[in-house]
């Protein structure tokens, strides 16, 4: 696996990953908690994510070439590090499964591509497997190619609907107080913290002259785009927002071209769907690497087995379990969200301290590698 990536590639990936998958069932569910203020819930989640993101960046900058797993082993002990890696692998797997189940739903109901889960997921897994085997570098290169098209399709989805958008639908602002917005944030936190994959990029990122600025800009672009999509959704659907099962198709269906051009929006939907595949590839890679560390696997054969284990889980779980309902019961309405919050927020916030402690233990080394210092793994 070649996991060495450039900062610019990672920045593009961050923009895509942040918006990918957040425009399926999430807006409708968020609206059921917070109503017209669901965009505030989303903004709040992104604000907290931003703090965690900056903390991860600090940790990444000062990791001294060590992987996040090595840092954990040096600080919290190896068994705890292995448990955390396993939990992260499970977290990413659940995120992938939930997102892909929503995607097959979208394809069946909107694009009339009706198939069973296995027939949908197997080709997707083959493509993802190939990319994971090649390493993160392959994924970021694909992202570079797709980035412009995905960005244009997102902007066009917003623009196609602007004629019908009524900004007054956001009023009254916080009519029920701040609690519903806060409830929405707390309950839907499972679907955020998209940048956790950066933990698995420690020591593999080559940067230019500036470290923080490009990353922060890309995060803000991703966040603003996603919030704009959410606001567009709310301004279109108002009171009906909680009933929309698939925001992407509902919003894109407001077609200013009228009857003559048919469902022009489907083109943009299909292009945007590629961002979900990219995100799933990224999370598969992160889950595989996490499992590698959890079970101390170093050989290529071992990588394949880890990937196969994750793929098998993704393939089989929806066939025997109601995954979406489980995610809703456990991680949205249930206590499982506090476990994932630990992974999503507590660990990132503590990561600079962990890095500091690891460096102090083993002597401070040089910071992140520059372009000329990157070696192929």
């Amino acid at each position, binding site marked *: 696996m070649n996991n060495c990536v450039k900062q610019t590639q990672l920045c593009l990936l961050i923009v895509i990953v942040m918006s990918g998958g957040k425009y399926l069932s999430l807006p409708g569910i968020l609206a059921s908690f917070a109503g017209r203020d669901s965009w505030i819930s989303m903004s709040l989640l992104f604000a907290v994510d931003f703090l965690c993101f900056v903390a991860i960046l600090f940790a990444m900058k000062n990791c001294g070439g060590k992987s996040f797993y090595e840092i954990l082993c040096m600080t919290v002990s190896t068994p705890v590090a292995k448990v955390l890696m396993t939990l992260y692998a499970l977290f990413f797997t659940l995120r992938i499964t939930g997102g892909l189940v929503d995607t097959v739903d979208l394809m069946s109901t909107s694009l009339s591509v009706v198939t069973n889960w296995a027939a949908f997921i197997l080709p997707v897994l083959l493509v993802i497997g190939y990319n994971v085997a090649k390493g993160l570098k392959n994924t970021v290169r694909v992202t570079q190619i797709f980035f412009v098209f995905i960005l244009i399709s997102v902007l066009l989805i917003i623009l196609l609907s602007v004629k*019908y958008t009524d900004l007054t639908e956001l009023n*009254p602002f916080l009519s029920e107080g701040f609690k519903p917005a806060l409830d929405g944030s707390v309950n839907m936190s499972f679907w955020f913290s998209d940048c956790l994959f950066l933990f698995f990029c420690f020591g593999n990122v080559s940067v230019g002259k500036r470290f923080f600025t490009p990353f922060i800009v890309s995060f803000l672009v991703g966040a603003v785009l996603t919030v704009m999509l959410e606001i567009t959704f709310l301004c279109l*659907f108002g*009171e009906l927002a909680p009933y929309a099962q698939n925001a992407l*198709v509902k919003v894109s*269906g407001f077609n200013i071209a009228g009857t003559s051009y048919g469902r022009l929006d489907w083109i943009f939907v299909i292009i945007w769907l590629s961002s979900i595949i990219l995100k799933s590839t990224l999370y598969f890679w992160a889950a595989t690497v996490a499992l590698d560390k959890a079970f101390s696997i170093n050989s290529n054969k071992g990588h394949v087995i880890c990937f196969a284990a994750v793929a098998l889980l993704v393939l089989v779980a929806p066939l025997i379990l109601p995954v979406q309902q489980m995610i809703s019961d456990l991680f949205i309405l249930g206590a499982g969200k506090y476990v994932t919050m630990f992974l999503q927020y507590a660990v990132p916030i503590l990561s600079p301290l962990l890095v500091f402690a690891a460096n102090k233990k083993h002597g401070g080394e040089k910071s992140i590698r520059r372009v000329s210092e990157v070696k192929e793994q």
Partner: protein
Amino acid sequence: MKKFAGKILLFLAVCLSLWLANSYTRNELADRAVVLGLAIDKDQSGFEVTAEVVAPSGQDQSGGADTKLLSGKGKTIEEAVGDIHRVSGKDPSLAQTGIILMGEGIKEVNVLSFLGYFTFSDAFKDDVVVAFCEGKAKDVFESASPVEQIVSFALQDIIKTASDKTGGVNNYLQKFAENQISPSSASYLSVVKKKEESASQDEKGDGKKPSLYDCSSVCVFNKGQYAGELDEMQSKGFALLSNPSAYASFVVNSSSNEFGVESEITVGIASKKISFETLFEDGVPVFKVEFEAKLKRQRTDASGDVVNFLPESDGEISKDAVSQISAETQKLILAALNGCKERNCDYMNIADLFFKKFGNSWTQYAKNNPDYLNKVVFEPKIKVSD
């Protein structure tokens, strides 16, 4: 084993491809009936849904669209659509539907009881035009338009596109449904009335005589129930206020026309600006309407509707004509506003606007004053100029 690895892999790939190909529901274009418009009628036995469909045969190379009407009956809309599939053998595909026309039978039903079939579907577009018609909606679909081959397109042109220029109104599915569950609980639809059949012959030889449609009337719904049709003044006033791009024309007396004789002339609204303000004065809700319009004399090949930022020009309309139009506009707007009180139907979305500004204070007020429409004071402010 390594020698055969490539062949084994190829064999597995072929098997996978075959299995994948068989794992998708066959949904060939030729097996589908692409629905362009839906006519919904209701009688005692249930719903009758008539769909204007394009059914690709795969054999016609000549191009051009040929539509057919397929009807289905059922106790629910879903059953009626399923009946279309049963009797025609074609799977109705509703993703391309552009208009839903509801017949008079819908007056007896709460529309919210069946609109969910459309609004909660991911495949169905939410900006589909919705309209009401006199008589049976199926009869409208069975007639022909003299200018457009496909009835669904003809109706959409009249209701959606042309209404902006001819002073009509149009509403679309999502807004129609949402307004029924908003604080105002009321919405509106344009009414399609078939005018006398045109004198032109049945040129196509399909048994349909071309008909003309009038879509200038408006009917209103209160909490999903039909609440009546607005009269001409109320309809015109409502169109002036509800649609920012709908224009209107006025016939006024002019002391001197181009030939220097006294006559009536037609003046159109070239651009307009509408704003609403909601406030409480001494505990009484006040609904202020500010209406500003620029006028232009209607001439040939010009309907008088243009965009804003018109250049200034010498007055071509007399001051007397302007004041006539101002008085007429005031009457129309007040007619539309007072129509809410007469019908106890908040189709002007007054409660919605109050709620957006005052939030729960308004909710509390409306709860304590369910007859808030009778208490609202209207203050229109009209400013027209040429």
